[in-house]
Every structure is written in C-alpha cells, then in structure tokens.
C-alpha cells in the first residue's frame, strides 16, 4: 500500500512536469490549431540554457529558470516568424513536417554544442531534503519544488488567459479568424506573443526536468510524445484538461512501470488514450459538439 502511495507521489510529480511540457503545445493548438513538434526540442534546449546559467555561470536556479523561459520564448517567436507565419494558410501536415525539420535541426545543434557523453546537472533548490510520511513514503523537496513551480506557472497562465486583454484576444483568435477580425485584433502581435508564451513554457519544462535529474540531448522526445497525448486527452487547448491529463498520464506511467513491467511504461498510457479517444473523441475536457 505504501509502495502504491509512493508511486502516486512520483507519478504526480512526473505528471506535473508533463503538464508544463504540454501547456505550451496545448496553447498553440488551442489558439492556432498548430502542432509544433519542435516544442520537444525547445524543452531540451531550455534545459541546456538553464544548465549554462545555473551550473556554468554559478547563478541561482531560478535565474536559470527565468533565462530558459526567456530564451525559449524568443526561440518561439523566431519560429513563428520564420516558419509558422509562412505556413499559416497551408494544410496542417505542412506545419507538422516543417516543425519536424526544425526538430531535427535543433537536436543536431545541441548535440554538436554539448555532446551527449557527459552529464549536465542543474542544481535545484531542495535537492537533498525530503518529507517522510510514515516509514517508507517520502516526498523529495525537489519534487515539491517542481510541483510548486507547476502550480505557479499554471496560475500565471490562467490569469493571462482569462483575466487579461491579451488572454481575451487569444481566446477570440481561438474562436476563429472571423471573430478575431471582428474584434479588430492585430494578428501578428498576438501570434508573436502566443508563440513567446508557448516557447517560454517549453523552456520552463526543460529547466524543471533538467533540475530533477540532468540535461541530455534526447530529453525532449518523451515529454513531446506525452504532451501530444495530453493535449488530445485533455481536450483542445484546455488548461485544466492539460493538468489533469498530465497527472493521469504521469501516474499511469509510474504505476505501469512499477506493477506491470519496466519496459512497458508507455503501454498503459497509450492504451488508455486509445480507449478514451474511442469513447470521448473530443477528449476529457474538450468542448462537446465541436469537432476537430
């Protein structure tokens, strides 16, 4: 029983990480119906930025965290200007493939700069300590920190989306180009801002994942795969959906590894996804009646 509780705790922390990794993707998908595969590499590169600032320059973790967010936000804007703006009226497949090309390029770039033989650790606050519940349930401070960061990130995101002018314009854009035009929204500025926020969320996820363990060139792949599932699973562009789907996936992943088989971590999440999609094609929190 305590092993089960322990897995729930690990799963929660992992799920929170995945939720942040998915949040940027979900935002882009919600507002522009764009799936940016390169987001996985923004997560990875964000991790490296945090590493350079934190371990390389010896600054505090949160400075590295902020640097990763800003740098990846800028990277997101560059992507928007150089790729997605040109492709905005093209089929979804074109956007997907172009972002796959970018994925490959960023991957090689990181590999050639940092290599993949050495570990790149990031020092995170609270790495050593833990809260012990009973005899054998422990909650690491580092995991508490990541959960806290996640909640803070989502709180800010919620505020931005639902309480600010920018959020209103974003939601209007999501309603469709006509609504946006009606409201007199200047598309380019909004697009740049949305891509900035999405990229920054990727950077945040990278810094957090890197902080828990360390940074490596292939660290963006698994979160990307899980994030793709989360945005569908959680419903289109729904923030609360992303958190809940992230938690469900994270916990399922951990329980599968622990109880079913270590090689089969993906098995249950993917199978559950397939089943859920069959029953509720619009996802857990998708708007009913609206078809993708």
């Amino acid at each position, binding site marked *: 029983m305590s092993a089960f509780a322990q897995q729930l705790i690990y799963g929660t922390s*992992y799920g929170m990480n995945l939720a942040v990794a998915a949040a940027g993707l979900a935002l882009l998908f919600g507002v522009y119906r764009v799936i940016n595969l390169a987001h996985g590499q923004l997560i990875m590169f964000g991790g490296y930025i945090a590493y350079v600032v934190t371990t390389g320059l010896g600054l505090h973790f949160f400075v590295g965290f902020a640097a990763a967010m800003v740098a990846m936000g800028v990277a997101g804007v560059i992507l928007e200007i150089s790729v997605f703006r040109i492709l905005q009226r093209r089929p979804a497949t074109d956007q997907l493939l172009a972002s796959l090309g970018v994925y490959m390029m960023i991957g090689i770039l990181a590999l050639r*700069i940092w290599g993949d033989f*050495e570990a790149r*650790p990031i020092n995170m606050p609270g790495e050593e300590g833990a809260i012990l519940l009973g005899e054998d349930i422990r909650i690491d401070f580092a995991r508490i920190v990541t959960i806290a960061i996640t909640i803070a990130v989502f709180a800010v995101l919620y505020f931005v989306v639902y309480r600010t002018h920018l959020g209103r314009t974003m939601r209007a854009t999501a309603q469709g180009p006509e609504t946006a035009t009606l409201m007199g929204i200047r598309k380019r500025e909004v697009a740049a801002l949305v891509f900035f926020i999405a990229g920054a969320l990727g950077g945040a996820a990278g810094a957090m994942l890197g902080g828990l363990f360390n940074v490596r060139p292939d660290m963006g792949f698994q979160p990307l795969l899980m994030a793709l599932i989360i945005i569908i699973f959680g419903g289109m562009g729904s923030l609360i959906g992303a958190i809940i789907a992230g938690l469900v996936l994270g916990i399922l992943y951990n329980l599968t590894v622990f109880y079913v088989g270590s090689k089969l971590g993906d098995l249950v999440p993917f199978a559950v996804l397939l089943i859920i999609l069959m029953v509720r094609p619009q996802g857990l929190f998708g708007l009913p009646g609206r078809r993708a």
Partner: protein
Amino acid sequence: MRGSVKKAFVGAAVAAGLAVGGSAAQAEDVFKFGGVFTLSGPASFLGLFEEAAVRLAVEQFMKGDCIVEAIPAQPCEGGGLKIGDKKIPIEWKAYDDVSEDKKSIDAVTRLVEQDGARAIWGPRMNSAVLSAASILDPQSIISICAICSSPAMTVGRKWGHDITDTGVIEKHAISKFISESPERLKEHGIDPKIFEGRKKTGFIGRNELYTVHGSIGWEEGLKQWGGKYSYSDADKVLFPQGTTDFAPFVAKLAEQKPDIVMMDSYIVPDMLAIMKEMKKQGLDFETGKIVLLGNDVLMLQFLVDLAKKEGINMSSGYVWGWQEHNPAQDPATLARVEKYVKIYNEKYGSTEVGNSSPFDRGAYDAAIWFLYGVQAAGTITDNAAIVKAWRSLKINGLRGPENQFFVRPDTGEVTGQLMATEYIIGVKDDKVFYTGINYRDDLFFGPYVYGDKLPK
C-alpha cells in the same frame, strides 16, 4: 558497348546525385579502409570518439608517427603500409548511420561496392551487424568493431572481429569478483565484510541489447561461481531510452530489496540520475546498505568527479567496477598513454568528440593492431592471409601488454574475439584505484562468447 551505355546511363540518370563517392578503382595500390559509425542520433557519443580514434591511427600510420609499435621488426615508417618493398597508402572513409539499421547497411554496401573497402569498421547495432555479416562474409571482407557488445560480431563468423570485451564478459568478471573467497579479497586489501551476508542482487539498465546480454551474463556468472547470490534474468529493470524521471524504475529495483545492485549502463547522464535516485530511495551505497557494481564507465575518473559535484560519494568502499588495464603498473604503457592522450586531446578535445577516455584508446589500439596485421600478412588483397596474420599477432598497446585474440579451449581455434584482462577497480578518496585482482582465461564460457549458434 554495354559498359559505355551503362556508364552514360548511370552517370546521367540515377547516379547524378549518388556517385559522389567515386567509383571502385584499382585495389592494388591503395588500401581502402571504411567505417560505419553513429555520429548523430541517440548513440552518437559512441561513434564520434571511435571514428576519431581510428582516423587518428590511420593518419599516424601514414605519417610514421605511431604511438604503439606492435612489430619491432617492421616499424611504423610512414607513407603507408609496408608490403614487401612497396609503401601502400591507406585511404579512410567513414559514414554516419544516424542510428538506423537501414542506413547502416546502405553505408556498408556503399563502402564495399562503391568505395572498394577491404575492411570495414562497424556497424555496432545488433541487427545491423547481422545484416552486414550477410553482405561482408560472402565477399570475405574483414569487419571490425571496438565497442560492440554484440556477440553477432564474432560468433560463427570467419571475418568478424570484436576488439573489446562484451557486456557478457564484463558481468562474468564482476560476478566472479563478488564470489571470491574472503582470503583472496583480504590479500588485495579489500574488507571481505563488504560482501558478507549479501544474497540478493538487482539489475538496472537501459532497454537495449547490451543490457539484455549483460543481464544474461550476470545470471550465468553468478551461477557459475558457486551460486552464492540469487538473481533471475526476469527481474532486470530496464528503462526506455530518453527516460527523464527515474523514480519508478529505481522504485521497482528497490522493491526487490537487493543487497547488491548491478547498474549496467554506459550513459553517463543516466548513471548519475540513477545513483542520485538510488540514494534517495534507500538503495544507499554510501552507507553500505547496498553494494553498487558497474561496468568500465562507472570507473571513469571523470564520472567519479562529476558524481562528487552532484553530492554523490562513490568512495565509500561499496562501489566496484572494472577497467581494462592499469597504465600506472607498467611504465612503458604509461608513457604511451600519456603521449597518446596529449595528441588526442589537442586534436579533438575542443570539438564535440571530447577528451580521451579508455574507449577511444581501445579503438586506437585496435586500429593500429589491425594495420600491423595487414603489414604482417604482406598483402592487401588476400583477406584470408590478413586475418591469419592479424589473429596470431600480439600487441603491447595502450590497453596494456600482450593483447591477443581468444583461443577456443575445445577446438584450439583462434577466434575474432579479443581476450582482454579484466581489472577489478574501486574508488577510494574520490580516486579510482586498481585492486590488483584481475581475470583472464577463466572468464570465457557460454554460448555468448564462443557458441556456434546465436541464442534466439
């Protein structure tokens, strides 16, 4: 007629793009040597330094600047391979397989058919090795790998050469070490209490063939040396490539309540993450709750330093692994290694290849050894003669003296598998040290090392 049509056609239509490599030409005056390495993708760190080391060996052979000299009578003079009275230049060509089987075989075929290579370094992934064998063996092309752990490289093959120990052999050595008598341990200054009363062993590694073999070798070895420890291959914990959170995997390992853990990974970031998580989850090798065992990468000084920075103390006396030799024991070897490391680091240290490690040294040794083998055979066209000459040649390389190929005890046949000495080492005061315990002949057994048939 047909030839000219063909040339015109190939030149114009398909090959316009393809024929960049040039055509297979006169095999008589150049020794063509090719390689397939993983230079990008998930396993690229293995390919980058291996390719760099082999390239360095070829360059030095051409310049007459070899660090390792295998045959005093035929020194490395420069200008190429000394065959009879002639000097035959060596041409080195390497391709990237991007971690894909299909591209590996594309590259092997290209090297053989297009570039006219007579010997090929790599590939290293299992199914690629098997596929490559079906292309190379019928044409008697020598294939070599210095960091393959796949038995497919040598088992049942006339032309395959694996110039490293495999994951299986490593596990045999370590399992033998922990099964040693208290007297033998004491003799080498190791407190036998470290292993006293320990029974259950656990196994964790990345989900790939190397680890799968390693687990089988671990089970085999523990049984072979008296069965004091319990382990079943079914209990191995394998995490997928690209894992970012190791908690559930370490938890699964901890659930087995092991006294000893074999961490069979060579991916430094993974290893550090696992060690960190093991400490957190009570699999503590710092206090001696468990004994941590690992392979050669675990016993790299730079890893011990990195771990220390991360707050992991490996010098508790409960962490053991092995390395291939101890240069400090032998001044001649030490001098060679120092010279080599200087040259290598100057050439590659600032690039993505990185600084020298025992692995590129192994690849460098192997390459020099092979080139001497060709020279000793006195031919560049007769591969049977080359293999025969090479396999009977011993080398005093960077990995220590008297490296040689393994001779099957039952048939007396010389195989393509390197017979290296396994030196057990540990960590003391944040420095790796050699225990003085080493193994050689008695390690080799079982189908994974010299069996005639690969296990299914």
